[in-house]
Structures are given as structure tokens and as C-alpha cells.
């Protein structure tokens, strides 16, 4: 009995995964190979051309999504690492308060937060409208409906998912180890490069995973801040599914995106997540 206990305890989560992940995935995989239309119904024809057709039509959006997701992730890393570092090493007794502030935006819904950025950045809104009124900005200046707005929105929305794992990794670094490096003639910069940074890489790895995947797949930011010229793959999937009722194409695109992300993660894990990298960083 006792030996079974761990399995019994894990059973609910396995059931959950089976019902809400595996079943819909199998269903979607099957739909992605069907043909037909919403009125007459779909039939399984093992039509792998669904994939090539979808890719042919939407490769621009797919590449754009990867680009925007990558840019947003890079921006989050550049902004988030110093914040995590500061909280972990200089936060003192107020650490938990700073962490709470980082999480504060989550108390407002994701869509609402993005819409408020739309308000803020709109061409003649409170910010740019006022500045234009004062003659500080040219009349045709705009941020909304540009790649900058979409990447900025993604960066803003997913930033906490970058900060938190890096913070956790940095928080675990023993300050004595950093002192030991300085005692052994390392400057502050060298101590960071040789000791702090390598020890925080697992957090960076987790942070990049937790932001790149959802940012690449996200439809909300492009829809609200991107206008018509910055459509991402998430928007296409949504439109195909909800507006065009073209379930096979939507499913094929979803699977393609998933495959691309999985391959990317795998390559990335091989390159960064292993001990080899830590060892290399130690040289």
C-alpha cells in the first residue's frame, strides 16, 4: 500500500493531463488532416496538404511571430536580469515588497492591460495628443500599429515571467561565494562574469522558456496594438478557427507552431541548459 501511495497521489494530475491535454491534442491532430467545410461537415482524408497549404499561405506571419517573440524575449532579458539582480542582492528586507510590485499588474486582466496601452499610445491620446498639441512631436508621429508597439506590449506583458525565475536563481547564490571570487583577485565585473552569471543561467534558461513560447503564440498584443500590418500567427489561428470556421487549417497551423517551438526549445536546451555550458562559463 505504502509503495503505491506516490502513484495514487500523482493520479489526479495524470488524469488531468490525459483529459485536458492528450485528448484535445489527439482530436486536433485528427482535425488537422480532415477536409470539408463547416456546413457539410469535415471528413478524415489524411490530407497532409493542409499543412503545406497553411504554411505556404502564412509563412510570413509565422516568421514574424518568431521574430517578434524573439525580440520581446531579448528585451525582457535585458530589462529583467538587472531587476532580478537588484532585488536579490540589494533588496534587503523589502525583497517581498518588490516582488509583490512586480506581480501587481497580474491583478488586472491581460486584455485590459493591453487595451490601456492602446489608450496610452493612441495617435491623439493623452500622451502623444498632448505632446503634439504642444508642438513637441510631428503631427504624423505614431507608435500604435507598428512592430515597436507589438514587441513593446509583449515585453511589458510577459516581463514578470522573466524576472521571477532569474530572481530565484540569483537568490540561491551564496554571497560568500561571490566574496571568495573577489578575495581571489577578481574585480566586481569578473566575479559577476565567472561566478554570478554562470550560477544564474538555469534561471535565465527557465525565464526565456516561460516568455518566448507564450510571446510567440500570443494573439492579443498584435490584435490590440499591432493594427493590420503586424498580424502574428496567433491571430491567424484565431481568425481561421473562429471567423472562417476553417478548423483543419487552424489545427495544422497550431501543430506547426508547436513543432517549431519544440524544436527551438530542444536546440536551445542542448546549447544552454546543460552542464557543459556551465563548465564553459567557468573557464
Amino acid at each position, binding site marked *: 500500500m505504502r509503495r503505491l501511495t506516490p502513484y495514487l497521489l500523482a493520479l489526479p494530475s495524470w488524469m488531468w493531463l490525459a483529459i485536458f491535454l492528450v485528448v484535445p491534442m489527439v482530436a486536433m491532430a485528427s482535425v488537422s488532416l480532415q477536409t470539408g467545410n463547416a456546413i457539410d461537415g469535415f471528413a478524415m482524408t489524411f490530407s497532409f496538404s493542409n499543412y503545406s497549404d497553411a504554411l505556404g499561405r502564412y509563412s510570413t506571419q509565422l516568421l514574424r511571430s518568431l521574430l517578434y517573440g524573439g525580440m520581446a524575449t531579448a528585451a525582457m532579458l535585458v530589462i529583467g536580469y538587472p531587476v532580478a539582480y537588484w532585488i536579490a542582492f540589494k533588496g534587503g528586507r523589502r525583497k517581498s515588497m518588490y516582488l509583490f510590485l512586480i506581480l501587481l499588474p497580474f491583478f488586472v486582466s491581460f486584455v485590459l492591460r493591453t487595451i490601456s496601452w492602446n489608450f496610452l499610445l493612441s495617435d491623439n491620446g493623452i500622451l502623444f495628443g498632448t505632446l503634439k498639441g504642444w508642438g513637441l512631436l510631428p503631427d504624423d508621429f505614431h507608435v500604435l500599429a507598428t512592430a515597436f508597439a507589438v514587441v513593446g506590449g509583449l515585453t511589458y506583458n510577459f516581463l514578470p515571467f522573466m524576472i521571477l525565475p532569474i530572481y530565484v536563481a540569483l537568490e540561491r547564490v*551564496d554571497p*560568500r*561565494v561571490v*566574496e*571568495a*571570487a*573577489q*578575495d*581571489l*583577485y*577578481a*574585480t566586481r565585473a*569578473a566575479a559577476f562574469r*565567472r*561566478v554570478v552569471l*554562470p*550560477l544564474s543561467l538555469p534561471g535565465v534558461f527557465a525565464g526565456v522558456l516561460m516568455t518566448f513560447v507564450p510571446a510567440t503564440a500570443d494573439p492579443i498584443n498584435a490584435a490590440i496594438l499591432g493594427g493590420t500590418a503586424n498580424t502574428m500567427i496567433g491571430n491567424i489561428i484565431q481568425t481561421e478557427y473562429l471567423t472562417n470556421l476553417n478548423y483543419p487549417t487552424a489545427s495544422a497551423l497550431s501543430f506547426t507552431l508547436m513543432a517549431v517551438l519544440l524544436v527551438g526549445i530542444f536546440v536551445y536546451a542542448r546549447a544552454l541548459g546543460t552542464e557543459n555550458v*556551465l*563548465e564553459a*562559463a*567557468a*573557464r
Partner: protein
Amino acid sequence: MTSAIELDDVVKEYLSHGEVVQAVKGVSLDIAEGEFFSLLGPSGCGKTTTMRMIAGFEAPTKGLVKLHGQDVTNVPPNKRDVNMVFQSYALFPHMSVWDNVAFGLKQRKTPQDEIRRRVGEMLEIVDLAGREKRRPREMSGGQQQRVALARALVNRPRALLLDEPLGALDLKLRQAMQIELKRIQREVGITFVYVTHDQNEALTMSDRIAVMNDGLVEQLAGPREIYERPATAFVAGFIGTSNLLTGAATGGTLKISGGRVMVPGQDGDVTVTVRPEKITIGTEEPAAGLSAVRGTVAEVVYLGTYNSYAVSLADGAEITVFQQNAHDATATAERGDSVWLSWQAQHSYVIGS
């Protein structure tokens, strides 16, 4: 001899929950080059804080730190020619043993082949050759300790600071490492500043000892002096076992409950310490001129090489006596026996108050 490390009236205050805590309250030390110098004291007395100021991790609130004659009070740790072996080792967890030991040399841009030679030699000395690819977490406490030692020593610093380096080891390994450390120190000839709260360790290894208590140095002297002539009641109590007798002396004699203590040349209130091994236990009344006290044996403990007696006096005070098992293992006195204790006048050591 030139001095390697000088502390000039150093004070360190911390602000903790809005309150000022004085961890070090004014310490002056002058440590000679090549000396094995120990800081000894109970937990929380400021040993680590003192070391951290020498290494440069903490700036003193007041006072000066000098290394080899130069004022380094405001010099960062990476520019000080001293290395520290941390209380918790603080090895780099993501590096192999080899990379840990080579770290300092690499930072100093030592040529590759010299790094290879010196790290190899050092690992040989600390008996870790063949384990250079291991990670710290794959090593035992004793091995980690030796890595920490090698990592500091390989740089040939002019002074090595060791903060309770043997604290985590079991007794056997600790004794072996004590001998090893002493041998290494003799061989490389560099100044060792050694922090410990183990009095035996300090007594056996050091050239000189600073006994610290509550942020201050109570006594600074050689091991023999510290043991035989403790400067304060705290030192007498902290180092070894010691009997403290107090009272008013008249004409060189201190009258206590059940006897007399000879304190030549003393008058007025005095505090006297007597080491347990200096006291003779017997049934006959001691000769005049010796200190002599009557009491009842309250406890006899057999300790192998010697017996320990607790003898209670008429007023309830207790005196501890050690007697060597030189001839036979039977105790001189049993529990409940009425006995005479005696010792020579020179063994009553009057503590300066």
C-alpha cells in the same frame, strides 16, 4: 620581525533592525610575518568580523587596517595580498576542483603552463591529486576543506586568513588536518591568522593567541602564558578548567572556607586561579607554606589518563582536581571522603582585575 597585519583600534558597528550593534569594539593587533596567530573566543565574539575587515569585505567603522606596513583600510579585497579560507568554504559550485584552485591564478593572468604546474603541485600537497575533475558537491567535508585551502594557498599570498577551517570535521580528521596545516605553514612560511573557538586547537597550533570576548581582546600572548597566567577571569574560565577563588587577603594569605591560599605580597580583595592539575589531593594535613584547603569529595570521574575530583568546601564552593594515573588505577579518595587539597604558592595565579 616586520609586522604582516596591523589593526589599530578597529571598531565595527552594524545597523540591525534600527539598532546599532557593536560586533568589534576596539581591537588592536600586531601580527608578525610568518607567525601562526589565532583568534580564539566564544561564538559571536567578533572573530569573523575581525577577519572580514582584514580581508577587506567589511570597512571598519573606526580605526585602521595595515598590511605589510601599508594602510589598506579602503582597498578592495581583490587588491589585497591576503587570501581567506571561509568558515563555510564558499567553493565555486559550478567549477571542478581544478578550476576552483586555478581561479586566483587565472584572475592574475598567470601563464597557462605555470597555472598547470602550480595547481598540480598544490593538489598534490593537499592530497587531492586524481580528483581534479570532481565538483565540490561530490566531495566529503574534509575534501572540500582541503580544496578551499588549496584554492587560497596556490596564490602564495603573504598572509592566509582561516575562519574555523576545521569546524565541520570529525575529531580524527581534525587532528590530522591540524598537523597538516601546521606543516604547510612551516613549509610555505606565510603568516596564518587562524580563527577558532576550540581552545586545544589554538593552544597546540599557535605562536600567539588573542582571546576575544564580546568584541574585545581580553588577552594577547603565547599559549603557555595564556594557560598559565590568564589575564582575566574570562580567559581563565575559557581556556581549560580552572578554579577561581576570591576574597580579601591579609599579609599574603587569603582565608577561604576550610583553609588558606598563599598569595605572596598581596593585600586586599583578590581573585586567584588554580589549575586542577596543580593541586595535590591527600589525607594528611599539608605542610606550612603550601596553600591548604579541607573539603569533601563530591564526585570522582575516571578519565583514563587521569582522575577528576570535585571537592566541595564547607561553604558549598567546588574545587576541581586532576590527578594523573601514574602508578595504579585506584583512586586516592572515594566519594564522601574528607580530604586535604594543597598546592604551591607559585601556582596561585592572581588575576589582574
